[in-house]
């Protein structure tokens, strides 16, 4: 069984502060980490690998620095890694990355399962799963918390309203994993060393994927940044509990809240 996990990278939120007052983001330490939700996805894939015979392949598209994210994923337990990068891929947007990843996955060959983090922590981008399912023409299950395989059948527990639903999925399929679905494992010390010193990340450029700069032209364009206004403290009501309650009800009525 072959499982493919796309990996994205975000700026480490511990390394910057957002100042709405100055309308600026102050980057104190520019460090990139694997998108935490993608680690949840990788954990789902690795737990399937632990439970049986599976090969887990990680793939990433965009900037060259994704190399570090892929090596970390290998240190966590992935068997092989593919990096899709060049100047064009580094500048494309989420849709372009999704198309490149779809091409990359096709180029890797047959797969049984794709496991994707539902969204990114930085821009709450939740497009990758649906894009890939569409490009590759496979069934998609969202909000996944757990997956297991027995007798060749994939059983998935997914979010369902306030509870969960258990569904069976025909392979090949794509799962988008809910953020916080599990506690991802730590990378292994010895595998960290091997990931940088012994193992290779296979790198393909846009030409290898049969994509041109026009194919990868961003569909979106950043126009500017806006910051939500700073929250201001509400009005403090004082007096006896009866007076405060009466005043509160009156104020809520005045604002047509009740």
């Amino acid at each position, binding site marked *: 069984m072959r499982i493919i996990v796309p990996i994205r990278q975000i700026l480490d939120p511990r390394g910057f502060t957002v100042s709405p007052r100055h309308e600026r983001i102050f980057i104190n330490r520019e460090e990139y980490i694997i998108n935490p939700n993608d680690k949840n996805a990788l954990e789902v894939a690795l737990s399937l690998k632990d439970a049986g015979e599976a090969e887990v392949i990680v793939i990433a598209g965009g900037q060259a620095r994704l190399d570090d994210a892929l090596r970390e994923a290998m240190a966590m337990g992935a068997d092989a890694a593919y990096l899709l990068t060049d100047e064009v891929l580094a500048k494309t947007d989420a849709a372009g990355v999704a198309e490149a990843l779809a091409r990359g996955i096709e180029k890797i060959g047959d797969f049984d399962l794709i496991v994707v983090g539902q969204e990114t922590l930085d821009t709450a981008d939740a497009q990758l799963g649906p894009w890939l399912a569409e490009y590759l023409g496979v069934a998609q299950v969202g909000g996944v918390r757990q997956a297991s395989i027995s007798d060749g059948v994939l059983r998935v527990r997914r979010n369902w309203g306030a509870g969960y639903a258990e569904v069976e999925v025909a392979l090949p399929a794509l799962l988008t994993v809910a953020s916080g679905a599990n506690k991802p494992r730590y990378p292994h*010390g010895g595998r960290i060393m*091997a990931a940088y010193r012994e193992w290779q990340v296979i790198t393909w450029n846009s030409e290898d994927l049969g994509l041109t700069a026009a194919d990868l032209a961003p569909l979106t364009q950043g126009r500017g940044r806006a910051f939500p206004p700073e929250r201001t403290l509400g009005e403090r009501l004082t007096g006896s509990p009866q007076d405060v309650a009466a005043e509160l009800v009156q104020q809520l009525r005045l604002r047509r809240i009740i």
Partner: protein
Amino acid sequence: MDFTFPKEYELFRRMVREFAENEVRPLAKKVDAEHRVPFETIKKAAKLGLMGVPFPRKYGGSGAGETGYCILMEELGKVCTSTATVIGAHTGIGAMAIYLDGTEEQKEKYLKPLASGEKIAAFALTEAQAGSDAAAIKTRAVRDGDYYVLNGSKCFITNGDIADIITVMAVTDPSLGARGGVTAFIVEKGFPGFSIGTLENKMGIRGSSTAELIFEDCRVPKENVLGQFGAGFITFMKTLDIGRASLAAACLGGAQAAMEGAMRWAAVRSQFGVPIAQKQSVHFAIADMATEIEALRSLVYRTAWLIDTGQPHVKEAAMCKVYGSEVASRCINRALQIFGGMGYSREFWVERAFRDARIAEIFEGTSEIQRIVIASNLFREMGLRISP
């Protein structure tokens, strides 16, 4: 000259830091209060390859060398000195002796389960009458057919009561003394005649155990002689040299954590209407701490580099040990002063750090011994003979 850490070490540090924050810190206060070894942490650390960080992957280690091992010790030292001590005595001296001088068979049989964390190691040199004067040990080993029979006792042995495999130094020829008359042995806890004596009730590092070991006609197979027969003193000294650098790395972590904790506290603690962080006395204390810490960091990782590249490092390792332990004590003491009354409270980690730090100036060679090592190496380097 390139002072940047390669990327594998950066990722390794990030992993260890998260492990320390999430798995080790929550237990630090508890294991100190309950005076018990954090076995649950050891089990988790083993799964991540953290019980054999410096050893090659073929022996079940992480292959991260002394540099990687110092990173582990630094990050553990930031959150729990006890955990650093348990893993340090296991890896840095107990298993290290087997790695440095063991035969392939011994490495296969003993180093592998130690590096994978399946088994725990200890290193037994100190005796009641032989501390700094290590050559004065009295534990005897006498040949009896295919065995050596050990008699004597060791004291202050970190991990002594929890270890499965113990490297022990014993006298094999009293007439030869330290040079040729002392041999190292690998002892399994199940060997007949081996038992645990009293456990120490310590001031600090209370989440680690310190035991007396008793050998009463303890029979050790002759293939468990570690290193060359009669050269046990050399094996043990080599091991201690390497252990000193990583011990200093744990001190580095302790000092750094104390400084950062004091800074956070100073930023929120107000007196005379302003945060005490605005006071020049606090600035000076922090600047002094930061400068010493930075000097220590350079010394520790340069020494780790010397070890990893197979260069002479005895003097530098001793400098690490004496400077590291004293910087940690000074920084934690200064931090405690910034914390004021809060720092003296059992409720707060500074008090524990203060108690934990003191041992680093004593164990694995006192500060006095380190100074002797440094000075005698310097005289030798300069070609000056000072003994008749």
